[in-house]
């Protein structure tokens, strides 16, 4: 699936940059460490916006397009930030047969974002994930780790309302 590039302004902190610089300093002589650096960067920033990819490209002395090519090839890399509330809908087999796609669609409809995206106010991000090991509660989704099980599409607006001030 094509990844959506976030238009939410980058809000990196000097502390985050110091951390990334340290990772790059350790790896910059070995270009095969690019993936590793990208994983670390995503760990630091939560996602890989253009600003971060430029830092990696410059630091590792690889073309930006290379970094972006890797970032868009592997599912593990995100181009969108995580929201204040990170929603993860399980599309594992059990949840899927119990209708989790409709759950995902409903959340998507209420928040106006697709999977892999973040709302413009930075409040919610949405993701589809594989089995989280709670098949007995299928269909399930989590908000910042809190599990909601045996839900229906009709439950969604009510659940989300709790997070919208």
């Amino acid at each position, binding site marked *: *699936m094509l990844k959506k*590039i976030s238009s939410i302004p980058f809000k990196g902190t000097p502390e985050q940059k110091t951390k990334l610089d340290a990772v790059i300093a350790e790896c910059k002589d070995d270009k095969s460490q690019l993936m590793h650096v990208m994983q670390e960067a995503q760990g630091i920033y939560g996602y890989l916006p253009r600003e971060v*990819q430029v830092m990696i490209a410059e630091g590792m002395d690889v*073309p930006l*397009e*290379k970094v*972006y*090519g890797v970032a868009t*090839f592997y599912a593990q890399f995100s181009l969108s930030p995580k929201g204040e509330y990170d929603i993860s809908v399980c599309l594992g087999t059990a949840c899927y047969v119990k209708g989790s796609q409709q759950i995902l669609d409903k959340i998507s409809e209420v928040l106006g974002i697709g999977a892999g995206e973040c709302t413009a106010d930075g409040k919610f991000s949405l993701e589809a994930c594989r089995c989280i090991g709670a098949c007995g509660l299928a269909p399930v989704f989590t908000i910042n780790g809190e599990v909601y099980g045996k839900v229906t599409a009709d439950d969604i607006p009510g659940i989300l309302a709790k997070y919208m001030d």
Partner: protein
Amino acid sequence: MENLVNIKINGFDYQVPAGSTILEAAHSAGIEIPTLCYLKDINAIGACRICVVEVKGARSLVASCVFPVNEGMEIFTNTPKVIESRKTTLELILSTHKKECLSCVRSGNCELQQLCKDYGIEDANKYDGAFINYAIDDSATHMYRDNEKCILCRRCVAACEKLQGISVIGANARGFDTHIGSAFEYNLNDVACVSCGQCITACPTGALSERDDTQKVFDAINDPAKHVIVQTAPAVRVALGEEFGKEMGTIVTGKMVAALKMLGFDKVFDTNFTADLTIMEEATEFLERFEKKENLPLITSCSPGWIKFCEHYYPEFIPNLSSCKSPQGMFGSVAKTFYAEKMGIDPKDIYVVSVMPCTAKKFEAERLDHTAVKGLADIDASITVRELARMIKKAGINFNNIPDAEFDAPFGLGSGAGTIFGATGGVMEAALRTAYEVVTNKELPDFDAFKDVRGVEGVKEATYNLDGAEINVAVCSGLVNAKTVLDMVKSGEKKYDFIEVMACPGGCVNGGGQPIVPASVKNFTDVRAARAAGLYNDDKNLKIRKSHENPDVKAVYDEYFGKPGSHKAHDILHTGYTERAKY
């Protein structure tokens, strides 16, 4: 002695060098295996599966472009299984290919079209299904990209990365969504692309092509108010013939000039003339800087792809760039000043067209910051060799059967030194021929005195003694090689006085605006060497082989500029550069 191995191809015995690929071995045996993604030296990825063959004992078909031969190997290049596989691959490629061959710029020299013909594809829509619509990227000055015609062979990506060391394009996303693009899906105009066009000449289909300016030129020719003049770059005369079936390396100057006259240009001039003019200015500039030890090494400025590269990636070298406009730019400048005055024509009514082996010249033509006449472009249209060929064909000119014609005065004479500008090392050699005589006041004893700077190697170095002064020079082509040289200068590892850089590997003879050579030829012929040989032969056959002996050049100094490096020459023939963003 070369290590040989015994192999069988289609039942016949052959001895081939160990380590060669099946593709190479078959070629040496007179069997051509079709390829699509393979480009010698830069793209051996075995991705497209068109070159598959059967190897006895192998589990499945193997990609011959990457599979090495070994002792006793039995290869079958032509079995029903092989043919069926290639055909299916083609049909699958066609399922996501915009099949508008009738209106495609590459119709007739498209490698995909040729293969479909060779393999007898009956139903081009056999596997029609999902199709991703991509917008055409025509943001850049010099080219467009139509991803709906892209077959994802990655030859363009390899050219950008391996030849030029730039990598502003690559494969984005994954699986069915995979497409060639730039980081964050920026348009080409918004990334640090240098406009060299090497991706275009690498492309097997019509996915990449130069911006077509031929209509603009036809319109100008048909406008009675315009005095339309044309200049042709040194490397055009040795490549244009290929578009009309001539052997690679054939010089077609006479026919080219005749065709341009038949197209209706008011005057047909030779860029070799301004190449000579460039040498006068640049040799002067070099000797001045060399004496003062200022801004050395001096780096040539003829190649607009190189200039843009320097501005984006090595701005610290901008002071080292020669301030001379390129021969294209100098021609436009002289045309709109000296020529306009001489002919009594308002420069506004002079329309200058250039025929260039280059797509970056289109970008250069649109740099309007240092034009000779304020508010007027030096060059009104810059077209590639491919576009000129298109114009000639459209006009129904039977190129091979027209009598030769000669360039017009007063810019019709070019020296051999100007001619060799088209090959890597040529500008350096031309400059040295002149610098030698200026410095030593002696006649150059041997035209091969500077032959160390000739040849297709990516980096060449030499040291010459001009009247006691040692001059260290370097010549490089292909920007990946320019990077190597500049990095060595930066680190202090090397010290040069004069560097020639050409963006395209081999120089302009292999420019991004030259006729497209299919991979089936390119993989086994050195295009750079074949075309360069034509230019060096031309040089040898010319009476005048030094820029400062060109009477047209002398005249333009006598009548107009005074002397090389004069104030007027600086105003009109020189330019400046701008630092550009890398991201």
